[in-house]
């Protein structure tokens, strides 16, 4: 019996287990999925937790619930992978031998990469919201914060969900307005990028929104250190920005397992062919989701689109057929803009987000790159879609894995 092993039972790994369980069956194939955790977190929910919009129980379920019964769920730690020998060495000393491996070990924050970030003010006045603990501690802090200088900060790119810190800024504006204390809070958005986002059209729209909400933006800021004593962040050029409350997105890195196994780059991301999702080093290893180094957004929607294409490529690989070079970097993200509204953006490797209608050209009902209540309803409905459709690998109607160009206002097709 042949053996397919999936490393990681987060969004990407769980989707692959579900997809492949329909195709690779006993007695020919055994599928195993390994994760040391027992809980599956709906990570987009971390954004809403600090503002009391979601409760912890909205975003935490068990991993087991989403893994098909025909797949072996192994809940244990991994010591090391030896891809040259097709082996996974488990923490307890046991060894798994695989024919095909899928790496879906994700990305996580590494605050220790920045001097002083994990210092005396960590989770006192310096918070992250990319972990459950960070988001929850921040919620408790915000509940009785009296106001002052709120600094929302990105350490370096790439990060998971690059729009999340902007959404945090918009939701914070909305939150303090509802608490009748917006005039007591000065909000500054600090980014290593030159502007609000990575793509020009969306940047223009988002910067307009920041201005409208009286959120000051500081660009081109490459942080050197968090100065805990004077409560300020300082960049390599000596620019200092004071804070009373710092909400930072620390450096993101791939899993340390990739480093231990010699499979990662300098940030532990696995070098991956961007159109086929095959590892560049090992032909029987495939990578999807945040774990890879492909130049696509690190987001659940990307993993979802990848999963449909990767399923086909793994089946082709097993049959000895050439892989399809089909993945186009498709991402689709709701951006919460506060006050019950949201934007929606749809883009890929070559096409930046523009205005238009989604998913039906000309009709919508969702509007691209424009604020609307319908988009906000879409974002909230997405949690249901995530738990009930996305993880199970159910195809989401009308949304194809590769991006559609119809119904969108492109000036010209250009590489961005």
């Amino acid at each position, binding site marked *: 019996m042949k053996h397919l092993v999936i490393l990681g039972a987060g969004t990407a790994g769980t989707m692959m287990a579900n997809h492949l369980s329909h195709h690779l069956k006993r007695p020919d194939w055994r599928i195993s999925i390994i994760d040391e955790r027992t809980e599956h977190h709906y990570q987009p929910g971390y954004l809403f937790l600090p503002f009391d919009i979601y409760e912890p129980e909205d975003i935490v379920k068990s991993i087991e619930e989403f893994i098909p019964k025909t797949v072996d769920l192994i809940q244990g730690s991994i010591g090391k992978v030896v891809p040259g020998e097709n082996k996974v060495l488990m923490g307890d000393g046991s060894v798994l031998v695989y024919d095909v491996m899928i790496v879906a070990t994700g990305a996580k924050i590494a605050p220790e990469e920045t001097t002083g970030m994990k210092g005396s003010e960590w989770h006192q006045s310096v918070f992250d919201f990319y972990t459950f603990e960070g988001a929850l501690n921040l919620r408790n802090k915000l509940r009785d914060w009296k106001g002052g200088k709120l600094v929302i900060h990105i350490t370096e*790119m*790439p990060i998971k969900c*690059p729009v999340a810190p902007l959404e945090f800024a918009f939701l914070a504006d909305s939150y303090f307005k509802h608490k009748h204390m917006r005039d007591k809070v000065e909000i500054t958005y600090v980014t*290593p*990028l030159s502007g609000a986002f990575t793509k020009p059209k969306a940047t223009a729209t988002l910067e307009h929104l920041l201005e409208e909400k009286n959120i000051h933006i500081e660009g081109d800021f490459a942080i*050197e250190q968090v100065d805990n004593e004077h409560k300020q962040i300082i960049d*390599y*050029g000596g620019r200092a920005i004071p804070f009373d409350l710092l909400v930072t997105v620390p450096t993101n890195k791939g899993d340390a397992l990739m480093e231990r196994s010699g499979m990662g780059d*300098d940030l532990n991301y696995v070098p991956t062919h961007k159109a086929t999702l095959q590892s560049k080093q090992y032909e029987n290893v495939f990578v999807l989701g945040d774990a890879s180094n492909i130049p696509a957004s690190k987001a659940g929607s990307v993993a979802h689109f990848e999963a449909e294409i990767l399923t086909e490529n793994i089946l082709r690989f097993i049959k000895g057929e050439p892989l399809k070079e089909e993945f186009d970097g498709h991402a689709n993200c709701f951006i919460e803009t506060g006050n019950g509204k949201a934007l929606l953006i749809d883009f890929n490797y070559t096409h930046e987000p523009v205005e238009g209608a989604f998913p039906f050209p000309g009709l919508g009902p969702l509007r691209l790159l424009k604020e609307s209540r319908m988009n906000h309803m879409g974002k909230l409905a997405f949690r249901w879609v995530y738990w009930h459709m996305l993880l199970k690998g159910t195809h989401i109607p009308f949304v194809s894995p590769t991006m559609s160009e119809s119904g969108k206002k492109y000036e010209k097709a250009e590489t961005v």
Partner: protein
Amino acid sequence: MEKVIAGKTIHVNEEGFMTDFKEWDNTIGEALAVENEISLTPRHWEILNYIQTEYKNEVPLSIRKIGKSGVVDIKEFYQLFPKAPLKTATKIAGIPKPASCI
């Protein structure tokens, strides 16, 4: 769009980054540096040569990578190319703005 600099015509995007590295030469580099208010020293050139080599080898550039390159640390990189060093250095080097930002 086209731009005339150091007596030569080059192609640049709306942010002023050259779109065809083959058009670049040292005199254009010097002129682009002047436009960005930097007078190039041998130390600047070491870094410009390094990032051009990385570009030719298709290695994606980031501040982090340059800091770990052994060529220059981030602090000095900032002193040589103030404010936004990676952006300024790549602009002078005649290569596209790094897409380290997705």
